[in-house]
């Protein structure tokens, strides 16, 4: 019992020392609270995968009612923003070349004449393929616009030439409904996702810096000669950053609910416990990196590159995991953010509890144990 008391005392002492150092730097306090907040707000307000207001330009060699109607159908859809009418094909191509537009439309001279004679007319549509994913989506929209224009033309034609036929009829009717997020408001997915993203980066970076600083400045030798065990030292050091991260979590959670109005339907206590586990994973990543490298600059760069981009790209926050290639799916199965994002979706929107989160919890727990064990292992080697 008394050994346990001593161990607890040691951990508290390390944590207290870390806390004193933290509060002695007002800049550090301000920044570690403000920078996650700033990042959170920026991402929530500015991040959007919606395809809208796509800039386009066109050249209309026909200049008749039908060709104007065709262009108008694009303008009226709300997906496209007109940059300007051009007088030649070269100008339209130039707009695409300098990335001023995403779409260029070329209407030939005989457009109206051919349609008036009940013939096919051709329209050339040029799409900027720089960002292929977006180009695919743009292509879909363009083809949709064109199909709609055609449906109207064909209906008109049927009505005129084939009297008695049901030109208005639509054989298939789609009845889509959406669960968990009926309005398909992308904020409901995005805002909790950004929250999970922010509370992964900061604990990892802070612990990486905190540990590597002592190693680099030689202060670590005080620890080597002290009766502290590696576990006591690492755990004590982590405690502060866990606490800071939980405070940040609470603040961001409040903003998510009250400012962005994302509904929270699940169990708060469950989410709180799992968040602590998740933040511990992040802190473990920082410790592991700092245990491996000698200098702060390296720890800093590695922790940034190892957390920022993967958490963003591979976790399913940005794109569904099923859509990724096989290597990327392996990366995503290892990363804690993948599990945490799923927990966030289940808690916020699907409103289910603990019982549905067992695999995710297991994923986080395995990672946390593994990363702490790795950090301890490599840290020990350096002492010897």
């Amino acid at each position, binding site marked *: 019992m008394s050994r346990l008391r001593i161990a607890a005392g040691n951990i508290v002492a390390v944590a207290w020392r870390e806390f004193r150092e933290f509060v002695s730097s007002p*800049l550090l306090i301000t*920044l570690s609270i403000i920078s996650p907040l700033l*990042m959170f707000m920026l991402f929530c307000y500015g991040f959007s995968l919606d395809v809208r207001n796509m800039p386009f330009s066109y050249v209309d060699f026909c200049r008749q009612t039908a060709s104007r109607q065709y262009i108008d159908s694009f303008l009226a859809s709300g997906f496209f923003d007109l940059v300007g009418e051009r007088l030649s094909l070269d100008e339209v191509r130039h707009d695409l070349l300098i990335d001023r537009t995403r779409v260029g439309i070329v209407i030939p001279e005989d457009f109206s004449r051919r349609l008036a004679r009940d013939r096919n007319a051709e329209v050339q549509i040029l*799409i900027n*393929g720089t960002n*292929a994913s977006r180009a695919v989506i743009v292509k879909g929209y363009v083809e949709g616009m064109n199909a709609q224009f055609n449906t109207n033309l064909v209906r008109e*034609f049927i009505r005129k030439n084939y009297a008695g036929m*049901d030109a208005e009829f639509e054989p298939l009717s789609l009845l889509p409904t959406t669960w968990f997020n009926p309005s398909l408001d992308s904020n409901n997915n995005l805002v909790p996702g950004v929250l999970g993203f922010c509370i992964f980066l900061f604990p990892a970076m802070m612990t990486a810096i905190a540990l590597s600083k002592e190693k680099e400045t030689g202060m670590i030798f005080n620890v080597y000669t002290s009766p502290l065990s590696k576990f006591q030292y690492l755990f004590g050091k982590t405690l502060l950053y866990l606490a800071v991260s939980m405070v940040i979590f609470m603040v961001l959670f409040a903003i998510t609910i009250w400012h962005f109005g994302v509904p929270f339907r699940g169990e708060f206590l469950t989410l709180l416990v799992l968040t602590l586990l998740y933040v511990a994973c992040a802190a473990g990543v920082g410790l592991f990196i700092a245990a491996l490298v000698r200098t702060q600059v390296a720890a800093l760069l590695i922790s940034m590159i190892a957390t920022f981009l993967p958490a963003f790209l591979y976790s399913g926050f940005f794109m569904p995991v099923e*859509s990724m290639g096989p290597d*990327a799916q392996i990366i995503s199965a290892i990363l804690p953010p993948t599990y945490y994002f799923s927990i966030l979706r289940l808690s916020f929107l699907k409103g289910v509890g603990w019982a549905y989160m067992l695999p995710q919890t297991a994923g986080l727990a395995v990672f946390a144990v593994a990363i702490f064990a790795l950090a301890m292992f490599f840290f020990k080697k350096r002492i010897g």
Partner: protein
Amino acid sequence: MMTFKRIISLMRKEFRQLFRNFALIGIIIYAVTLDPYTAGELTLDLREYSIAVADMDKSVASAEFAARLREPFFNIKRRIHSTAPMEDMLIDGDVAMVMVIPEGFERNLTAREQAPVQMVFDGTNANSATIALSYIAGIAAEYSESVMLERWRLSPDSLDNFPYVRDQTRVLFNPNLNDSWFMVVSEFLTALTMIAILLPAALTVYEKQFGTMEQLMVTPLRVYEIMLAKILTTAVVIILASYLGIYSVIIGAKGIPMRGSILYFTLVTAVFLFASSGLGLLIATVTKNLSETILVTFIVLVPIMFLSGTWTPPEAMPDWMRALIYFSPLTYYLDISYGIFFRGVGLAETWIPLSLLLGLGVLIFTLGALRFRKKFA
């Protein structure tokens, strides 16, 4: 002449210091090679959208319609015979959408009644659900068209004698819509940017933290010589790293055609590095140690990366943000770089953003250098 010699010797010191740091060199190499390589497997397009089909009609028509939800966009992961398991499947995230084709689908179609098809989406990933719905709407329209033509007893060829607009869609610069191209290049440029902003700040604050800055100060070296040596070293490292990434991964492993000139890319990178090292200097003057540097850098870096249009194209941003992006040097750098990689642009097409980048660089650098002098001289 003396200055030049001094800077060269200082750079040799910086290089030695840098290359002794294996972990740092390792992560830089990783960031420009392996990291973009795996990012190539990511896509924002609809891929393998998992669905369950409950075909209650079990007819030829219903099977034919369901078969139109094809790979690689959709993946019919489950076929169910009642709607009972639907709720659990959607909560678990086992499938992202359940399509219910009710009994009487075929009968309705032949009887010229409207045939309804129900779809229940998991709305938590609103973005993919929206894209999936638009794809399915397109598929349904096509199917409807074929049913209508049959009903009017017209062959599909007869559309040639209809007033009908054929859209000849052509995708420029990436005709096969190879998605990984953009992801690889954008990941490469993002990593390069992170290093470009972080490294100069870190190298400067490093010296400050260990008090070796004072040692340098008492030597006959001038402040600007110390500063320039650090900046030039970073620039050389980053430009070398960019060549490594371009030749090994972008052109090599991924076979992305580099349409523009690498020389021009180097020039643009150099101009950008000018601005980013100015930023690094500026940051180094306000912080005391590395933990502070990383946080300040982060505060600066994230908005800069964010506002550059890497992740969100400018047209999808709110207006106030759209106005801000013109103050971010990264906006111009990425703009020109994508242009060089994919569209083969050169100085003639991009001299405007390049001169804006240069102007921003001069502004930031002057500010950084002035503060640096005041602080250390």
